[in-house]
């Protein structure tokens, strides 16, 4: 069920000069949220920013007894709203509307789940990894960032049983280069008889490269897109994504038909402005 919660900030952990994890008291949303779903965030009640912004639900938070207390967001300071989220203090009120969007569908063993994340594209994979771990699905995380210090939560995934394939642009941890390098290597060395489901989230060129690689190896990939969104409800038609439909192509709303899409459905050449 959709709710708009005036959540208070339970904690705001700065990971670096630009990244933070902000915990919000919205247990109503955390309780029902599925992996990969998003919320529309209103950082303040005034006019700047005016519109809400979409965020993946990062963690579903629980207390010691296992009861849901809220959810967290993985935030990168870029504009006005993300700066407000970065500098928010405990007790501040943040509007959280959700949960919204089509979730990831977690695959079952014996199939393996391979998650491919670039930067803040890690955000939807914590909830997915929890769902996969609960089902006993073997999982790998391919995770690329600028430097070793930017590879947040990598060890958390390892603790959940995921095999890590890390890359950094400066080689300070894992392989030097793009996250698609270890992914391609793994695709090439894995026998076609072994079932794999891919999940990707990150910059659009990265997701496109993952979708291309998956297609070349006849593997399915679910991509979580992050288009500009006005309402998150299907009202404004701003978040459209070009998809193949029949013999043609069509713009569909990412808030309703996504944010998770079958990578093969996207008309990547026409995916502009994201």
């Amino acid at each position, binding site marked *: 069920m959709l709710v708009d919660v005036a959540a208070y900030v339970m904690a705001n952990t700065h990971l670096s000069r630009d990244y933070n994890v902000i915990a919000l008291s919205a247990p109503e949303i955390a309780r029902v949220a599925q992996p990969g779903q998003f919320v529309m965030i209103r950082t303040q009640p005034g006019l700047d920013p*005016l*519109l809400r912004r979409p965020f993946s639900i990062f963690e579903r938070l629980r207390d010691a007894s296992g009861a849901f207390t809220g959810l967290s967001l993985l935030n990168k300071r870029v504009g006005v709203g993300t700066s407000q989220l970065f500098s928010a203090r405990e007790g501040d009120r943040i509007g959280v509307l959700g949960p919204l969007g089509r979730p990831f569908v977690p695959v079952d063993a014996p199939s393996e789940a391979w998650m491919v994340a670039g930067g803040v594209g890690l955000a939807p994979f914590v909830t997915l990894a929890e769902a996969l771990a609960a089902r006993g699905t073997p999982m790998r995380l391919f995770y690329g960032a600028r430097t070793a210090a930017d590879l947040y939560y990598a060890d958390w995934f390892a603790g959940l049983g995921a095999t890590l394939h890390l890359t950094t642009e400066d080689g300070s941890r894992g392989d030097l280069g793009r996250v698609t390098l270890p992914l391609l290597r793994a695709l090439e060395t894995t026998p076609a008889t072994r079932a794999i489901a891919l999940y990707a989230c990150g910059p659009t060129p990265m997701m496109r490269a993952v979708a291309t690689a998956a297609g070349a190896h006849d593997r399915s990939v679910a991509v979580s897109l992050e288009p500009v969104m006005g309402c998150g*409800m299907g009202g404004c038609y*701003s978040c459209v994504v*070009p998809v193949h439909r029949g013999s043609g192509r069509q713009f569909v709303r990412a808030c309703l038909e996504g944010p998770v899409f079958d990578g093969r459905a996207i008309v990547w050449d026409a995916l*502009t*402005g994201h």
Partner: protein
Amino acid sequence: MADLTTRIGSLTLRNPFIGASGCFGYGLEYTGAVDLASLGGVAVKGLFLEERQGHPPPRIVETPAGMLNAIGLQGIGVRRFVAEKLPELRRLGATTIVNICGSTLEEYCEVARILSDHEGVGAIELNISCPNIKEGGIQFGCSLPGTYDVVSGVRKVTKLPLIPKLTPNVTDVASFARASEEAGADAVSLVNTFLAMAIDVETRTPKLSNVMGGLSGPAIRPIAVRMVWECFQAVKLPIIGMGGIATTEDAVEFLIAGASAVQVGTGNFVDPFIWGKLTSGLNAYMTRHHIARVADLVGSLRIPSKAHA
């Protein structure tokens, strides 16, 4: 409880609050947030005869206290609307106002005819004001003879209440309200968005794929209120006002300026649960001011004599 009902021609609305066309999908997208029957009306997204793809993204950009959009009237076309959406809107008890578009007078008439053949359409809002497409009616809406011709042309093919939606991108909006009245309209709605533009100065590229777009949101509210007031003085037709309404006070401002009902667009993006707040807020306002009916509030602007001199 004050009487919140209001009349737009032969149509009685439960309350003055209508989901604005282009901002409320086909209404059904919002059933998780609001009971559509509790709204004054649902103005659905503009419909042509055929399906339309709209413009490529980026389609919106935020501006100070507002937003620019150039969606390009993406839509399913009137035939799919009456088959796939209208029966459900009817079942849910919505008062459905169908916004229609055309590249020619014939297209407007054909869309109106199809809607007139189906149960469940409360009124037709004639979109002669979308700033974002070349052939979508603004050529009618920016010319007085064009406005007269399209309103009188559609008037001949439908008995449904007819509400031309006026553009603010003209020098004298009241003259367009008069042309609509003379042509047989039952009401007018205003304002559509203001043609506007935003540029990324680093890349020197427009922030919208369509280069220009329509400005909406609280930034335009005072101009919209002024235009409603001008039209209220010029015509006897009921007016549906809109432009940046985000609170009860904003809506009341439009009613006092002369609107019999209001549409809420950008405000619903920010808060899809706004509707209950608006109706309870209006009830509280009317109770506090001992106003029994919405009609008693409409056009009730008091201008002190000094300010008039």
